[in-house]
C-alpha cells in the first residue's frame, strides 16, 4: 500500500549520451495498477528497475510513500518483483521459493508455512508445493513467481513483462487473473509490457514511453480516444490507426479525391501548414456497399476474417504506396483484388502536426 512517485528521474548510462530514461515524472496512487508500455528501447524496463533499485537513479528522485529511495538498496525498499523469466530459485521447491522472502525477513517457520499455504491456495499451487521449478509448466512457474511476490504483502509490486513467456491462450487467462488478484490485494503495482493490448486491458492508467521519454499518462480509454501525439496514436490500438500526411484543401484535407473536413479548432491550431497528419482508426472507416462512386477507392490486398469482424488491408486505387486498414463486418464477401469505396467518419478523425506529431486541438 503505497504511493509511488517518479520525479524527473533519469538514468544515464554513459555521460553525454542520450539518457535511457529521461526526466520521468509519474505518480502511482495507492492501490493503482499502472502499466508502462512502449516499444523496445523505450526505457520502460529501465524505469521499473530504477524503482526496484536494480538501476541507479542518476538525476531526479523516486519516492515511495514520500520517502526518497535513491540511496536505499533493493532489499530495504519493501517491494516485490515478478521477472520476465520468473527467476525462480532452481534448487528450491515451490514452497521454499515462496517462503524465501519471508525467511530473509526473519519470520519463523510456522508463520512462513501459513503464509505460503494461503498464497498457494489463492494461486492454485497447493498441489505443487513440493515440486522443483523444473517440474512445472510455464504457467505454473509464472504463478509461483507471483506467489513469491504476494506472500510478503509488499508496498509495491513490480512486474517486468511477466506474461511474455506464456502462449497466447495462457497469456489472456493469466492477464485477467493478475488484474483480479491486484484488485483484491489493492497493492500499488507497476507493470511493464511491450504489448499494448495488455496495457489497455490491465492498466488503471497507462504510461506510454518512447525513447526514454514519457509520451502520455492517462486511462486506457483516454489514450485511445485522445492520443496526445502521432506516436501514441499509432502505438495504441490493434490494428494500428491509419496515419496519413494529407494536403489541406478548403476546410479540410483530401484523400483520394474525397474531402475530409477538419474542425475549426484543428484548422486554427494547424495555422498555415500545408499538410497535417490525419489519423482514423480502422473502425472509423466504413465500406460503401452501394458502390455509388462516392468515397475513397481502394484495392484490397489482404482479408483477415476473425468471425465477428474482419480487417481489410488495402491500398488506394490511385496511389499504391498509401495503405489503409479497414474494419469490416464478419463473414465479409470482399475478396483479394476487389475495389472498395471507403467513407471516413469525420467526427472520429484525429489530426496531428505533420512536423512535430503533436495533437492539433
Amino acid at each position, binding site marked *: 500500500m503505497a504511493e509511488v512517485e517518479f520525479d524527473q528521474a533519469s538514468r544515464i548510462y554513459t555521460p553525454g549520451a542520450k539518457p535511457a530514461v529521461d526526466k520521468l515524472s509519474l505518480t502511482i496512487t495507492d492501490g493503482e495498477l499502472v502499466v508502462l508500455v512502449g516499444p523496445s528501447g523505450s526505457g520502460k524496463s529501465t524505469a521499473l528497475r530504477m524503482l526496484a533499485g*536494480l538501476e541507479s537513479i542518476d538525476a531526479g528522485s523516486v519516492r515511495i510513500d514520500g520517502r526518497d529511495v535513491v540511496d536505499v538498496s*533493493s*532489499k530495504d525498499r519493501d517491494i*516485490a518483483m515478478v521477472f520476465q523469466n520468473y527467476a525462480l530459485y532452481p*534448487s528450491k521447491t515451490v514452497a521454499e521459493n515462496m517462503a*524465501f522472502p519471508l525467511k*530473509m525477513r526473519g519470520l519463523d517457520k510456522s508463520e512462513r508455512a501459513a503464509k505460503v499455504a494461503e498464497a498457494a491456495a489463492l494461486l492454485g499451487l497447493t498441489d505443487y508445493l513440493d515440486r522443483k521449478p523444473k517440474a512445472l509448466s510455464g504457467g505454473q512457474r509464472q504463478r509461483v513467481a507471483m506467489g513469491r511476490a504476494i506472500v510478503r504483502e509488499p508496498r509495491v509490486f513490480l512486474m517486468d513483462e511477466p506474461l511474455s513467456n506464456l502462449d497466447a491462450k495462457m497469456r489472456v487467462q493469466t492477464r485477467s487473473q493478475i488484474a483480479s488478484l491486484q484488485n483484491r490485494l489493492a497493492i500499488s503495482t507497476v507493470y511493464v509490457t511491450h504489448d499494448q493490448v495488455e496495457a489497455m486491458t490491465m492498466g488503471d492508467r497507462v504510461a506510454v514511453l518512447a525513447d526514454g521519454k514519457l509520451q502520455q499518462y492517462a486511462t486506457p480509454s483516454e489514450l485511445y480516444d485522445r492520443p496526445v501525439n502521432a506516436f501514441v496514436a499509432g502505438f495504441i490500438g490493434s490494428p494500428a490507426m491509419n496515419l496519413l500526411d494529407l494536403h489541406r484543401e478548403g476546410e479540410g484535407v483530401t484523400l483520394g479525391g474525397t474531402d475530409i473536413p477538419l474542425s475549426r479548432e484543428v484548422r486554427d491550431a494547424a495555422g498555415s501548414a500545408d499538410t497535417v497528419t490525419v489519423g482514423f482508426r480502422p473502425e472509423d472507416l466504413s465500406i460503401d456497399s452501394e458502390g455509388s462512386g462516392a468515397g475513397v477507392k481502394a484495392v484490397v490486398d489482404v482479408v483477415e476474417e476473425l468471425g465477428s469482424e474482419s480487417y481489410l488491408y488495402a491500398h488506394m486505387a490511385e496511389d499504391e504506396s498509401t495503405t489503409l486498414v479497414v474494419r469490416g463486418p464478419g463473414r465479409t464477401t470482399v475478396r483479394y483484388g476487389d475495389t472498395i469505396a471507403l467513407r471516413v467518419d469525420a467526427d472520429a478523425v484525429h489530426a496531428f502536426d505533420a512536423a512535430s506529431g503533436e495533437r492539433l486541438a
Partner: protein
Amino acid sequence: MAATIEDTPTTTAPQRVEGRRRRPGVGPVLLTTLAWVVAIGFFFPVLWMVLTAFKSENAAYTDPPTLFFSPTLEQFRAVFDAGIGPYLANSVGATAISTALVLVLATPAAFALSLRPVEKTQDVLFFFISTKMLPVVAAIVPIYVVVNEIRALDNIWTLIVLYTAMNLPIAVWMMRSFFLEVPGELLEAASIDGASLGRTLREVVLPIISPGIFATGLICVIFAWNEFFFAVNLTAANAGTVPVFLVGFITSEGLYWARLSAAATLAALPVVLAGWFAQNKLVQGLSFGAVK
C-alpha cells in the same frame, strides 16, 4: 518404405530421412575399426599393467605372455612392505588440503570476476592464466632457492602451497564460466527478496553451480595427485608423494615387473576410482550450460 521416405520433402522429418538414407558403406566401417584400434591402443597397456600386478614375478616373465593365470596379491603386499604407506599419506594430504584451499579461494574470486565484473576484469583474468605460461622447469631454480632459504625443503606444506598456486588459475577460470551461467535475474530477485550477498551466494548461487564446483575440485585432485616435478625436486623421505616413490621403485627394483605394476596400479587407483564414481557429475559440470 525407404523409397516413400526418400520422396518425402526433407522439411517434414529431416532427421529420419537423414538416418535412413545413410547406408552402411566402407567409410563408417573403417572409422569404427579405427576407433576400436585407437581405443584398444590406449587401454591395453593399462589393462596389461593391472593384470601384471596380480601375477607372480615368474608369470610376469612368461614368453609368450599368458592371459590366464592364478591371481595373487603377493605383489601388493610387497609394495606396502617396501614402504609406500607414508608416501600415500603425503599424496592424500597434499591433494586434499590443496584442493580445499583452491576451492575456498577460487569461489569468491570467480564470483567477483563473473557476476560483479569491473573495468580491469579482463586484465586480472589474463594475469591468472599468464602464471601458467612460464614452464615450471624455468621456475624451479628460484623456487628451490626460496624454499631452501626458508628451510621448507621436504615439507608437505611446501607442496600444499605450490599445488594450491598451481591449480588456482585453472580453478578460477573454470568456476568463472560456471558462474557466468547463473542468470543475473536470480541475483536481482534474491536482493529484492531481502537476501544479503552472503545469503544469496549460499542459498541461491552455490546450489546451482555445485556440479561445477565438484568438477573443478576433481580436476584439482587429479592434477595435484599426479604432480611429479615439484615433488621430486623439493621433497625426499619425509614429504615424498606416490609419484616420487614410484620412480624410486623403478630404479631399485626395475627388473621386478609385477611388483612395479602393482605399485603403479596403486598410484593410479584413487584417481581412476574418483573419476569413475564422479563421471556423471563431472560430465554435468564440464558441460554446464551446454545442456540447459
